[in-house]
């Protein structure tokens, strides 16, 4: 019997001989180095291995890295297409500088020396002139842990902007309010019941690692429950699909919670020990004694209305299904895992209350840190220290965290153009990286307007491997390496264990194996493609060439004083000094830690970690001198909570101020939102009961992904062949009423404009909802600059009053290139860019852009064509102002801009949290 392996054993990676499949059955042997890296096509950081041809140094193919504990040798479709990206005929290979007006499409190829000099001088000047706050780095999915934050800290800048608020703010806030950690880490593989408010069998963080384990759990008998108005692939695999009316999910979740409490099927002991029920009683029920029995009574009263029948009336999901779900959860006990990240949480005003409600069930079941339960990400994600940590910035950047959003998770990224329009500040130099804000964010034409305005953004530097809608409006377009052309470290909470992944430029590694001396990654990359890590080092040296600004020292070698640090030194230091167990593991194989990581691409830090850190006993030294709060039991020392007395034992507790799971959030109560202090059902901004169905009003669900596409970046042929357009899902009865048939053009009107797309009529969607994937609808303004197989050529017309009109000239077309496949492109419609027609809708608490839109749908008229978009940016600014009016600005009760216990990706010094002019009496 032949034993088959899924992948070549690592012992063979130095000399792997493969049969070339394209000339098979002739047995052409090819010699490869198999060099590991990690995928860059989503944030999961799955392990990949590259087959690097020893003669040509070309990458023949990409597979999963079998030693990676998160992805376990498997990848999704997106991982395997990395070679498509490397060989993409539309890749940018040389740095370019704008000529003519911004966005006019005229470019000069320039040298990296010029680029570094010019940008370095700008930043140096800004620093010298005290304009640090005019520098901003705006990143989408970073694909690395901590590297650029360290760079910005070294520059002394509160300059980190992210994409979080169009992605996961509400879910983060909700998790954080409960536990003090903003991400969950479900242990699906060992669960007995899995409740997903997400579509992790096809998308999301962390699709491939989680999908593996969800199906593993389901195969072992776990019941899979999925709540989604849409028959996602995940819904399709569910044992129980609950297509709730969008925004009513919390009604079901609270009904489940009530059922568990009423039937005494919840983990009473856990709740008594770890939940801040005392605070709830003292704040909300002063009529009751502070006992757990009283609390149990109080929450029964609190949630009395949430019967299954009430939930059915709100959500449209049959009461018996809700009870079936509750029973499955009860039967699972602590082996109950959930996930809520984007989906409903990102869709609605108060979406964070939906996530809070799902986590309420986790708390009720005591499923935190248990096998099959939900860990906190801090227990399953490992972030090593970078060498020579710079001090935190000393100021607060109000363009990132404006006072209106003291509780936002995190930077109010998608409001930036409105802030600039309002004159809240301006930018001298604006870096975009792995980020296409004009396309990804709502209200893209306002972005376009601001990106074109040199008085608002002095210089825009786009770091990108490919053209994008945003890069088109840059001053410098700087080509950066793809997943196998760069160094990064990443770790994610993929399961109950911890690992550190190492991304590396595999061709550079191969050249070194061949004995060639490579001093920088761009020597191995195609054209003049750099890797960002080296770019930031080089740029930092240009900003501070003589070290007088105190910046250069952070970019000097720890081993060769005064010399520029190399990648080997940077990561060598990290692996030697801040990854527990790695030096020993390397030594056992007679390797240095860096050599170990270059060989395996990953290091397993822990095998299984159900840390239950909250139960950890405080050491006598820590405990000494602490005082227990008489009501909550929180142990306080020097004004800070350090732990919790639980049944007479001093424990660590959770990372909240009370060290408990905060069912009642004193932070929300004190920072302006007392009515939201506990998990609640609060229908969102598009509530089905308020839609006028006679006027053909619908709830547009615009925020779902496809398993085959890589966000907005690098659309590639093999993936686009499968998924290339985003028709509007419509339920059969709705389509019938509007006389719309499959494939008909429809006009979808939002508050600020409309778009024209095709209808896809389906039984897989709740009536009253229309849905559209946000992946597609890429466009370009120049025939030859942009992804020709994946974008439409468009013309944009602007009228004086801020109205924009976009028309597609043509969709994808076959074209000639070095890749014969480009002449075989058979699809033409590449989707419609719906986000342009969405106003910004920031949740006043989490800062999340609330994606759902109230729209009207009608059959398209004779003058409408596929892909038409019309937007009124004046109206979008009015919408912005209305949403801003919902906010309840800082200062908080202590005169600060943000609760000090709230995370920030790049935290400034404590003093920066204070408003300088705050007067406690005013």
């Amino acid at each position: 019997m032949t034993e088959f392996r899924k992948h070549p054993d690592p012992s063979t990676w130095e000399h792997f001989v493969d049969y070339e499949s394209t000339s098979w059955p002739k047995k052409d042997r090819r010699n490869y180095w198999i060099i590991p890296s990690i995928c860059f096509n989503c944030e999961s950081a799955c392990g990949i291995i590259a087959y690097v041809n020893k003669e040509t140094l070309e990458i023949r193919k990409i597979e999963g890295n079998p030693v990676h504990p998160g992805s376990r040798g498997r990848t999704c479709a997106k991982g395997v297409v990395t070679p498509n990206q490397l060989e993409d005929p539309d890749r940018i290979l040389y740095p370019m500088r704008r000529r003519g007006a911004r966005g006019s499409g005229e470019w000069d190829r320039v040298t990296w020396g010029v680029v570094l000099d010019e940008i370095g001088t700008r930043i140096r000047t800004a620093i010298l002139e005290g304009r640090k706050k005019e520098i901003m780095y705006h990143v989408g999915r970073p694909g690395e842990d901590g590297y650029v934050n360290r760079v910005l800290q070294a520059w002394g800048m509160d300059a980190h902007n992210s994409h979080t608020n169009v992605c996961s703010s509400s879910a983060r806030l909700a998790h954080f309010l409960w536990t003090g950690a903003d991400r969950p880490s479900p242990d699906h593989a060992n669960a007995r019941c899995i409740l997903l408010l997400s579509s992790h069998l096809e998308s999301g963080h962390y699709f491939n690692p989680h999908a593996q384990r969800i199906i593993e759990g389901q195969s072992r008998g776990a019941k899979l429950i999925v709540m989604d108005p849409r028959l996602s692939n995940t819904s399709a695999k569910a044992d129980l699909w609950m297509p709730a009316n969008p925004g009513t999910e919390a009604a079901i979740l609270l009904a489940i919670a009530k059922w568990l409490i009423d039937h005494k099927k919840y983990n009473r002991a856990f709740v008594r020990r770890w939940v801040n029920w005392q605070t709830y009683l003292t704040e909300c029920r002063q009529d009751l004694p502070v006992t757990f029995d009283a609390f149990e009574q109080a929450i029964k009263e609190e949630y009395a209305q949430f019967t299954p029948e009430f939930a059915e009336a709100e959500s449209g999901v049959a009461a018996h299904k809700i009870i079936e779900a509750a029973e499955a959860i009860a039967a699972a006990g602590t082996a109950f895992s959930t996930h809520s990240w984007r989906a409903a949480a990102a869709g609605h005003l108060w979406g964070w209350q939906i996530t809070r409600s799902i986590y309420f069930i986790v708390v009720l079941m005591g499923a935190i840190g248990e096998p099959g339960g939900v860990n906190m990400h801090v227990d399953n994600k490992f972030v090593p220290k970078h060498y020579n940590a710079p001090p935190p910035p000393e100021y607060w950047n109000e363009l990132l965290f404006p006072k209106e959003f003291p509780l936002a998770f995190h930077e109010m990224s998608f409001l930036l153009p409105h802030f600039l329009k309002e004159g809240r500040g301006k930018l001298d130099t604006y870096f975009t990286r792995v980020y296409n804000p004009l396309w990804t964010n709502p209200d893209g034409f306002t972005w376009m307007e601001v990106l074109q305005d040199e008085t608002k953004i002095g210089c825009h530097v786009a770091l990108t491997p490919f053209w994008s809608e945003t890069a088109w409006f840059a001053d410098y377009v700087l080509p950066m390496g793809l997943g196998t052309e760069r160094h990064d470290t990443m770790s994610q909470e993929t399961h109950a264990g911890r690992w550190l992944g190492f991304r590396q430029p595999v061709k550079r590694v191969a050249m070194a194996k061949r004995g060639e001396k490579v001093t920088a990654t761009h020597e191995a990359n195609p054209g003049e493609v750099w890797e960002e890590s080296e770019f930031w080092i080089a740029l930092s040296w240009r900003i501070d060439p003589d070290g007088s600004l105190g910046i250069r020292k952070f970019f000097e070698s720890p081993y060769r004083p005064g010399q520029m640090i190399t990648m080997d030194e940077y990561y060598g230091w990290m692996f030697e000094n801040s990854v527990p167990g790695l030096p020993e593991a390397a030594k056992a194989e007679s390797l240095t830690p860096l050599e170990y990581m270059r060989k395996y691409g990953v290091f397993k830090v822990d095998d299984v970690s159900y840390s239950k850190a909250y139960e950890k006993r405080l050491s006598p030294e820590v405990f000494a001198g602490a005082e227990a709060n008489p009501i909550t039991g929180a142990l306080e020392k020097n004004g800070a909570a350090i732990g919790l007395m639980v049944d007479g034992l001093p424990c660590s507790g959770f990372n909240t101020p009370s060290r408990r799971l905060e069912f009642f959030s004193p932070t929300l109560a004190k920072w302006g939102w007392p009515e939201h202090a506990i998990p609640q059902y609060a229908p969102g901004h598009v509530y089905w009961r308020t839609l006028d169905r006679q006027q053909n009003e619908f709830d547009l669900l615009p925020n779902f992904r496809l398993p085959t596409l890589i966000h907005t970046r690098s659309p590639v042929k093999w993936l686009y062949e499968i998924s290339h357009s985003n028709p509007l899902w419509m339920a059969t009865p709705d389509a019938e009423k509007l006389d719309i048939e499959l494939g008909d053009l429809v006009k979808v009107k939002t508050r600020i404009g409309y778009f024209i797309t095709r209808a896809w009529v389906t039984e897989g969607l709740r009536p009253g909802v229309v849905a559209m994937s946000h992946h597609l609808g890429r466009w370009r303004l120049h025939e030859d600059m942009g992804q020709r197989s994946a974008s439409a050529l468009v013309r944009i017309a602007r009228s004086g009053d801020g109205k924009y009109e976009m028309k597609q000239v043509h969709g994808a077309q076959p074209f000639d290139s070095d890749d014969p496949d480009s002449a075989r492109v058979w699809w033409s419609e590449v989707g419609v860019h719906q986000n342009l027609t969405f106003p910004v809708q920031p949740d006043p608490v989490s800062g999340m852009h609330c994606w759902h839109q109230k729209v009207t749908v009608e059959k398209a008229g004779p003058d409408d064509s596929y892909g038409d978009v019309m937007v009124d940016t004046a109206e979008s600014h009015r919408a912005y102002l209305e949403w801003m009016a919902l906010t309840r600005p800082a200062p908080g009760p202590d005169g600060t801009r943000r609760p000090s216990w709230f995370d920030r990706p790049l935290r400034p010094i404590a003093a920066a949290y204070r408003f300088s002019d705050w007067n406690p009496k005013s």
Partner: protein
Amino acid sequence: MPNYGFAIDLKMCIGCHACTIACKSEHDIPIGVNRCWVKTVEKGSFPETQRLFLPMLCNQCEEAPCMKICPTSALFRRHDGIVDLYGDSCIGCKACMVACPFDQIFIDPNTKTAEKCNFCANRIENQLEPACVSVCPTECRIFGDLDDPNSRVAQIVARESFTVRKPEKGTGPKVFYLGADNAAMQPEVAARPFMFREGQVHLRPLGAVEPDPSRPGDPRVDYDMPHKKPWGMDLVLYLLFKGISTGALFLGAVLWLIGDRSALTAIAAPLISTLFSVATAVVLIKDLERPERFYYILTRPNWTSWMARGAFLLTAHGALGGAWLLAGVLGWHGLITAMAILTLPIALGTTAYTGFLFAQGLARDLWQGTHGTIDLIAQSAIEGAALLLIAALYTSPSTTTVHLLAWTVCIATTVHFLILVSEHLFTPSATLHHELAVRAIVHGAFSRMFWIGALGLGCVAPLVLFGVGVAGGFSLVTLTSAAIVALVGGLAWEYIWVEAGQSVPLS
């Protein structure tokens, strides 16, 4: 020797397409074609809607119809049961594509040769699992030796209830599906819409079931990547040209043997036959994806293939026609008699083999059965007689000859008519595939051509004209026009037979 197979647990398949792409990457497959892909079908009404995923790959059939039909043995079975393909022998005739009931074979646009899944034989020989197995996030694919009772795949197949695609074809597929739903497994069941949820439909077979808006809960395909139908106009012309060539020579031989020594039999019949033999060869070679390799069919023949057998028959037939023509020109009448005797079986075989060849196209139910062969003979008789009647206008043959040719047209047309009518209007279809093909002919995409072209022009009009011609004392002009109309109608039917035969989805 191992005997490799797959078990695919559909309960675990999440439809993520990782397998599709891993396969593309492993084998560098161009866009537009696939060795492996995941079909998606939706069924049911909200909120009890289902989405079904069905990963497709080659079944490496026990009785592989592709191997049988391949004229050059480019397709071969490895010692481990895998059906592999030697691209250097492939002439690109696409016969394997009409044989495979699973739509698993295609022409690679880079190599212009057939391609198919071979369970990643290149990996297997390196002790590595196929790429689609290795990548699968949920490990829903289990690969191994079906003959080894200790292998996981053998144990699953022994223990669990499974289905294979199209068991009725009797090919012995070696990909076993657990938890399969008929709506996905049987390609004819689900309707095929004109667009998918995530994009355009690449190819939509003309005979596919159209979605019925009044029955939204019926199964409907939501993603599939069928391959281009292999045969087209070249094959239609081949049928016509060959029918003329063999029919003319056969009838010429009969006339010669009953004593017609006119220029019609001595020169015209072999001339027509030879010209159309050459034309047949030209369209056949032109239809090859690798025309420069056409002679492989004679130098590397696979004797189970009716295409290879047919090539030899065609060659012999062409040679006979040419020699007859030479003899006719040179006046070697004795030699013609010998050749005429030889012509009878060879022309008949050359006519008839195509019926067997099409029937070897196991994928296509319309082409199964003996009526196809009989009809080919009838059509060939009509076509041969038609050309000879036209030639008769210039060679003034005897009345007997004209009568004989006219009656040939009449009888053969009647036979052809009866076959068309009985097979497509009265005989119930044995399979859903056949039913869809017949529906496309009678009511669907080919109905106008069928009723007006094949039946009207091809059968009714010639018979009526024949009646008129006979009533008018065997008017040669009328009879000739009957023959010409029959030719046109015959061409229409040949088009329908080729196209409608391939109009039903296979995947």
